[in-house]
């Protein structure tokens, strides 16, 4: 029914006004110096300032390192766990998945705050505390995504691999692993993305002077009120995130192709 197509109009207006225009405003602010919306002048100063001072690129680098390490830890723990769950009987799987989703319903800040108490007497370094907080918050996403792709897998494919003489390891390497890659990829996205921009985990667990790129953005918007520079930092972060996501996807494709060759 073509008339139903009109139901989309309100949302098209909504996303134009509340997603597209606000995004463009970040770009606008990033490329201008303090002025009002009507009188702005183009400048690259905000970006130059970011890259000329050693501190900003080093914070960005540190955020990337922490996000990448968090993602790797989540993958190393998450895959075997998801795999273990997928091997269980259906009703057990449902129970475990429910048990993993349950904590996710409880406010992230509240759960992170809880770790503060537990870790306060532990004597761990700020870095370690932040890692624990990150892995704790984002590991469930990894497990759920990988489990999703493992449990959807057609059992007859695995049976066929066995029938054709593959052993357990070969079956895993050549059938199960390649088929679970979509889940792994969306898991990586769901962990890396919030980890790289997180600013409450470093603040709650790392202490006030543990600064990641998210904290930097927060400071320039809330404390310093330098929105132009804050926008430039956000834009740089958004680009870095998009590029790394793109590279992940491409790396996956390359791996797939070389396997086939």
């Amino acid at each position, binding site marked *: 029914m073509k008339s*139903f197509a009109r139901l989309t109009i309100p949302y098209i207006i909504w996303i134009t006004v509340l997603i597209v225009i606000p995004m463009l405003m970040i770009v606008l602010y990033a490329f201008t110096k303090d002025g009002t919306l009507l009188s702005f002048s183009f400048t690259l100063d905000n970006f130059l300032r970011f890259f000329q001072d050693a501190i900003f690129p080093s914070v960005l680098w540190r955020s990337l390192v922490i996000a990448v390490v968090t993602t790797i830890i989540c993958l190393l723990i998450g895959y075997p766990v998801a795999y273990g769950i997928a091997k*269980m009987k259906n009703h057990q799987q449902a129970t*475990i998945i429910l048990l993993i989703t349950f904590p996710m319903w*409880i406010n992230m800040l509240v759960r992170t*705050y809880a770790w503060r108490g537990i870790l306060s007497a532990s004597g761990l370094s700020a870095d370690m505390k932040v890692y624990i907080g990150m892995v704790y918050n984002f590991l469930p996403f990894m497990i759920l995504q990988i489990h999703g792709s493992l449990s959807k897998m057609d059992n007859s494919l695995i049976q066929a691999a066995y029938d054709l003489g593959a052993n357990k390891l070969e079956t895993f390497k050549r059938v199960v692993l390649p088929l679970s890659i979509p889940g792994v990829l969306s898991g990586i996205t769901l962990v890396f993305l919030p980890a790289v921009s997180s600013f409450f985990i470093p603040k709650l667990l790392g202490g006030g002077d543990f600064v990641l790129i998210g904290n930097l953005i927060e400071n320039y918007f809330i404390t310093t009120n330098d929105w132009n520079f804050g926008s430039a930092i956000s834009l740089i972060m958004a680009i870095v995130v998009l590029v790394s996501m793109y590279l992940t996807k491409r790396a996956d494709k390359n791996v797939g192709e070389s396997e086939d060759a």
Partner: protein
Amino acid sequence: MKKTKTNNPYSRILVILSLIFFYVPIVYVCFFSFNSSRSLTHFTGLSLQWYEAMFTNRTIMEALWVTIYVAIIATLISTIVGTLTAIGLSRSRKIVREVVEQINNLPMMMPEIVIAISLMLFFIGLNIKLGMATLIISHIVFCIPYVLISVMPKLRQLDPNLAEAAMDLGATPFQALYKVIIPQIIPGIVSGALIAFTMSFDDFVISFFNTGEGINNISIYVYTMYKRINPSINALSALIVLFVSLVLIGMHVVPRIMERKTHKNEKKGKSSDEEMECLLP
């Protein structure tokens, strides 16, 4: 159904360890919410004082109220708009559908903080005072995408001629929508609404940048406490844990019991429990 013992104990232990990891902080806060001293490391005795402190703390109670209020309104509006948009998109031209889907994915693909500051710049640029209204609008912005992506797949499974058939039989477009299409996609709508509610209930980053003076949700309140130790937060956390448990029990256990009852009545004696063991190596 052969029950081969292929499951090695290591993977089971790993699953159990990860579950323990997930529940440690939850059990910890619940436990320490009954502590008689301020300490977060030493349990000195049972007391309900932090619950009392929480219920008499106006800021916490207001934050709780704001969180629930915003989540309910944002969920209602996003569910309605998201569902109608999804139905509209399923009948739209491909180009419209693709562009809308791409933009719709942006809030989920971008770091949350980018969406948060973009909205803040927008509101302030238009001289809109940050407060309850901007808080609700910003929540709807990130909730609709989740409703849309959970309703769309259900619509794809539908027979595209269903609405036409209903209208050939004399239904108005509204009736076709309300009596034929919507009932078919209810599972998608419900799961979309649930995701929207949790997302809104839990949100910190977008709320933090788009709320005004004196209007805090739970997340913002906890964040502002980052320098201090405030055991009332433990009591608040325990309360949230209780609330979430009740909701989840209501959602999962009750339907299952009902199902089992009707199942038993329907096929007495027949074993309907088809357990498949996964063949993963």
